[in-house]
C-alpha cells in the first residue's frame, strides 16, 4: 500500500460523490450574471421605494420597511436553504451540501441581524423603545442565536469533514423556529405587524408599498445567491488547500 495509491483514492473518495470541479466551473460562469442582476434590482427597488408615498401614520420611517421586511424574509429563507442542505448531508452524504450549509450560515446571521437592527430602529419611533419582548422580535432573536450557535459549532471542530454531520443534525432540529417566527404574531397578539404581504389569501397592503417591497425582496434574493455561490467557491478552495497541506505533511513524513 503506497502513498500514491492512497492519495489517488483520497481524491476519488472525498469528492467522489459531487464533482466540485464541475461546480466551480458552474459557479464561475453564473456569478457575474447574479451580480449584475443584484445591482439592477437594487437600483430599481431603491428608486421605487424612495418614490413611494409617505405612510399616513408612519411617515418617512416607512422607508425602513423596504429594508426591514425583505431582510426578515431572507433570514427565514436562508435557514430553509440550510435545512435542505442539511438533509443533503445526512441522507446522501453529499460533500457540496455541507459546503453550501457552511457558506449559508454567516449570510443568514447577517440578514437576521439586519432584520433585528432595522426592526429596533423602526421600533423606536413606532413603539418608543428599542427593544420589546414581543413574540416576533424575540423569536427572530432566537433565530439569530441559533445561527450563531451553528457557526460556533462548525468552528469548534478542527476538521471540516468532521463538523458536517453535527452541524447538519443541529440545523434540522433547529428548523422548528421558522414556523414559530412565521406564526408568532398570530399565536400571541403582540405589538408587531401581522403578516400583510405573505398571507395565504391575497395581500392586504397598498400596491404602492407592495411593489417596491417585492422588487426589494427580489434584489435581496439575488444578493443572497451571489454571495452564497461566492462563499461556496471559497469554501471548496480552502478545503482543497487544506488537504494539499495535509498531503505534503504526509510526504514529508515518508522521506
Amino acid at each position, binding site marked *: 500500500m503506497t502513498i500514491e495509491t492512497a492519495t489517488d483514492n483520497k481524491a476519488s473518495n472525498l469528492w467522489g460523490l459531487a464533482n466540485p470541479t464541475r461546480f466551480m466551473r458552474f459557479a464561475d460562469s453564473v456569478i457575474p450574471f447574479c451580480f449584475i442582476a443584484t445591482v439592477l434590482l437594487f437600483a430599481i427597488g431603491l428608486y421605487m421605494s424612495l418614490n413611494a408615498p409617505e405612510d399616513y401614520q408612519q411617515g418617512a420611517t416607512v422607508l425602513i420597511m423596504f429594508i426591514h421586511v425583505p431582510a426578515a424574509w431572507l433570514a427565514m429563507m436562508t435557514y430553509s436553504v440550510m435545512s435542505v442542505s442539511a438533509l443533503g448531508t445526512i441522507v446522501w452524504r453529499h460533500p457540496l451540501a455541507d459546503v453550501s450549509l457552511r457558506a449559508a450560515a454567516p449570510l443568514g446571521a447577517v440578514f437576521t441581524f439586519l432584520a433585528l437592527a432595522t426592526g429596533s430602529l423602526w421600533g423606536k419611533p413606532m413603539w418608543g423603545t428599542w427593544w420589546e419582548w414581543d413574540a416576533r422580535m424575540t423569536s427572530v432573536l432566537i433565530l439569530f442565536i*441559533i445561527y450563531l450557535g451553528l457557526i460556533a459549532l462548525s468552528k*469548534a471542530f478542527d476538521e471540516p469533514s468532521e463538523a458536517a454531520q453535527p452541524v447538519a443534525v*443541529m440545523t*434540522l432540529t433547529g428548523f422548528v423556529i421558522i414556523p414559530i417566527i412565521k406564526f408568532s404574531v398570530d399565536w400571541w397578539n403582540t405589538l408587531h405587524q401581522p403578516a400583510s404581504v405573505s398571507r395565504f389569501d391575497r395581500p392586504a397592503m397598498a400596491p404602492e408599498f407592495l411593489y417596491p417591497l417585492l422588487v426589494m425582496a427580489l434584489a435581496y434574493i439575488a444578493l443572497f445567491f451571489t454571495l452564497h455561490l461566492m462563499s461556496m467557491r471559497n469554501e471548496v478552495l480552502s478545503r482543497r488547500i487544506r488537504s494539499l497541506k495535509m498531503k505534503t505533511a504526509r510526504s514529508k513524513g515518508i522521506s
Partner: protein
Amino acid sequence: MIALLKREIVSSWRSGSGALMGVLFFLTVVTVFPFAVGPDTRLLTQLAPAILWIGALLASLLGLDRLFTQEREDGSLDLLVMQSHPLMLTIFIKASAHWFTTGLPLVLATPLFGIMLNLSPAAVGVTMVTLLAGTPAISFIGTVGAAVAVKLPRGGMLISILVLPLVIPVLIFGIAAIAGASNTSQPFTGPFLFLCAITLFTSVLGPLAASVMLRHSAD
C-alpha cells in the same frame, strides 16, 4: 437495557454529577429571586411558577456535556454503538437516566420550594404536574446537543446555547398550563396536552437525531 439504566443511575449517583447539583442550583435560583423582587410577596408568589420552571430548565443543562463525552473518553461508546440493540433505544435509556438524576429530583423538590415562595398547595400540585410532564423533554432534546458535541471536551456552554432555544416551547406551554390552572380565564388542558405532546414527540425525535449523530462519530 435495564442494565444500562441501572449502571447510568448508579454511576452518576456515585459521582454525584446529577441529582444534588441540580437540586442545589434549583435552590439557589429560588433563593436569590426574592432579593431581586424585593419584599413584595404577592409579586413573588405570582412569579413563583416562572422561577421554578426557569430553575428546572437551567438545572437540567448541568451534566449534559458529560452524557456522551465521558463514554467516549473511557472507550465505552464504541461498545455501546456496536451492539445489536437499536442505538436509538440505548440513547433513549441514557436520556431517561439523565432525567431520573436531574429532572426527577427537581420535581420532587418542588413542594419544598413552593413553600419558600409561599405557593398555595393547589399551585404546587399543578407546578409539579407540569414539571413532571415537561422536564423529560429537556433531557431528550438535550441528548441531541450532547451527541453533537461528543467530540468537544468542554462543550458545556456550546451545548446549552444549542439546546436552550429548542426547549423554549416547553417552557412556554409549561408556564401557560400553570397560568391556566390558577385563573379560570385561560385554559389549562390545552397547553398541558401540548406539553405532553412535546415530550412524547421529543422522546422519539431526540434519540433519533442523536443516534444519527453517534453512529459514525466514534473515531
